């Protein structure tokens, strides 16, 4: 695990302009994705998870959004320095992405097989027949029972879980080095969700695939990921191996997030929420962004944003008091 990171993001700043206000959707995010790991990004809506992923892909729509600072190194190359034409070769073949809602993520007017073949031919030097064969074998790999029938179907003829498998097959057929999965199970029901997670785990083992997995569901993180990054209001608040995060969460926000997960065992105190609101991303306070909602706030938290501090092996948190907190 000490080898060169596959993806290295440093001090990423992505902003959106709306009505003359600058919204700092991602503000100073740094992380590495190490080869062969599954890194989870967790946070609530608007915390900057998806914007981080889209920034890496170079897909922030301008206007209104723009990556204004930081570096994104993928396999030793700076993606921010690349032209659109160069980025098109990275997208798909280098970094592939699977989206949240499989029913709307495929072109409704072409058959599954046509779409898969087209994208495979775009990135791999293959004839139409070879690409079609590759599509079929990838569908087989994601456990689709009748690849032939699925290939001749239109997207609306398949269920959501089935389409998400198709999407994964389509992206993996491009042999990407990194797969970004942006809430790929959020739109699916729980049993299908488990199947998709098992599939991603399996493909990760089989293809030695590196995965950046974005979710708001800590349960999914626990099942799937090696390490996890917690985001709050556009910044990283905690970065930790998955076990450490669940056993000794260091940041007050992480602890509250864990407490908010409904428990099946403890039915008396379920459905807890975190009091207060996320700060306005266009008008951020100078200090800690979680200050208003924090039970353990200190006078100094108001003044400056705390640094990410080491709190354990491979474990950092953006809090002045990490050692004072015990699980």
């Amino acid at each position, binding site marked *: 695990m000490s080898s060169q990171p596959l993806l290295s993001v440093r001090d990423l700043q992505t902003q959106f302009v709306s009505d003359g206000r600058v919204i700092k959707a991602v503000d100073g995010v740094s992380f590495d994705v190490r080869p062969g790991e599954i890194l989870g990004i967790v946070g609530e809506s608007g915390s900057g998870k998806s914007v981080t992923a889209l920034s890496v892909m170079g897909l922030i729509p301008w206007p209104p959004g723009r990556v204004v600072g930081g570096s994104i190194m993928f396999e030793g190359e700076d993606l921010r320095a690349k032209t659109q034409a160069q980025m098109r070769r990275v997208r798909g073949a280098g970094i*592939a992405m699977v989206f949240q809602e499989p029913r709307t993520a495929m072109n409704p007017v072409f058959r599954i097989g046509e779409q898969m073949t087209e994208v495979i031919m775009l*990135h791999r030097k293959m004839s139409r027949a070879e690409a079609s064969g590759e599509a079929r074998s990838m569908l087989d790999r994601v456990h689709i029972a009748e690849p032939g029938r699925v290939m001749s179907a239109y997207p609306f*003829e398949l269920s959501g879980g*089935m389409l998400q498998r198709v999407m994964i097959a389509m*992206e993996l057929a491009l042999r990407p080095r990194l797969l970004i999965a942006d809430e790929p199970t959020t739109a699916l029901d729980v*049993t299908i969700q488990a199947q998709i997670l098992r599939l991603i785990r399996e493909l990760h083992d089989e293809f030695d695939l590196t995965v950046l997995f974005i979710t708001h569901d800590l349960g999914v993180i626990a099942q799937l990921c090696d390490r996890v990054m917690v985001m709050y209001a556009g910044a990283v608040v905690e970065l930790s191996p998955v076990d450490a995060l669940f056993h000794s969460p260091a940041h007050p926000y992480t602890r509250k997030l864990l407490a908010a997960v409904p428990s099946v065992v403890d039915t008396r105190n379920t459905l807890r929420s975190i009091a207060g609101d996320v700060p306005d991303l266009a008008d951020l306070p100078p200090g800690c962004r979680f200050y208003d909602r924090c039970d353990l706030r200190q006078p100094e938290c108001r003044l400056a944003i705390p640094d990410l501090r080491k709190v354990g092996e491979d474990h950092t948190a953006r809090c002045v008091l990490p050692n004072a907190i015990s699980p």
Partner: protein
Amino acid sequence: MTDASLSPAVRRHQRPMSAFWRRFSTNRSAQIGFLIVGVYLFFAAFGPWVAPYDPLAGSLRMRLAPPSTEFWLGTDDIGRDILSRIIYGARVSFIIMATAVAIGLVIGVLIGVVGGYFGGIIDSILMRIIDVMLAFPSIFLAIGIVAALGPGFFNVIVATGLFSVPQFARIARASVLSLKEREFVEAAHASGESTFNIISLYLLPNSLAPLMVQTTLRMSTVLLTAAALSFLGLGVQPPTPEWGAMLSNGRTYVMIAPHVATYPGLAIFIVVIGFNLLGDGLRDTLDPRMKQ
């Protein structure tokens, strides 16, 4: 929806085409429109073989003859068979209509897609041009273009084609604006598709339904406008059998031989109705909001 995980691999939905036919076949007005347009296209294609007489050869002995078994719709002021002229005229109007709508479709879609996709200053410039064109009542715009180019068959096509550009441009732009925010277009970007592929494989095929409806409806507008231009003497020139020109010619004799003006007018009326019914029917069957 039944439980997807238990059903066979592919749920047997109706295919898009068969679903389309099922809805189309329950739409009475669309069927009537389809029938009228079908008959019209038949005459446009096979007119010379089914017309009883030469449309240009008159007989002065038979001037302004009323409908009879010999001349079903009568004859005009120089003794030409009106039925034959209407049948030949179907082809003339079809050539004008199809070419003009094709011009409007191609230029309009190009402008609309480029404006909608790229946005910003390009979009603003293109849309202001379109707004200027839309500011003129359409017949005035067509008259203005013909006035600038001079009358004639070819110039009527150019005029009616250009005045169809704004409608197609706006529809294409609106489609692209809504489609480009859709997740499957974002997913296409994420798999490294080029701008050209995104437009030609993702945006255009998904805009087809509204464009098809507009194409059909536009046919009737162009037919009517071309006939109006010819009626005003700005369009197709005699002796070419064009419905608008025939109507204009028959106007002189409307008191003594009303059939000379009535039948060409009726032909215009029926075909315009046919394309409108077909267009409305297509809209009802293709509009996704109408699907259950």
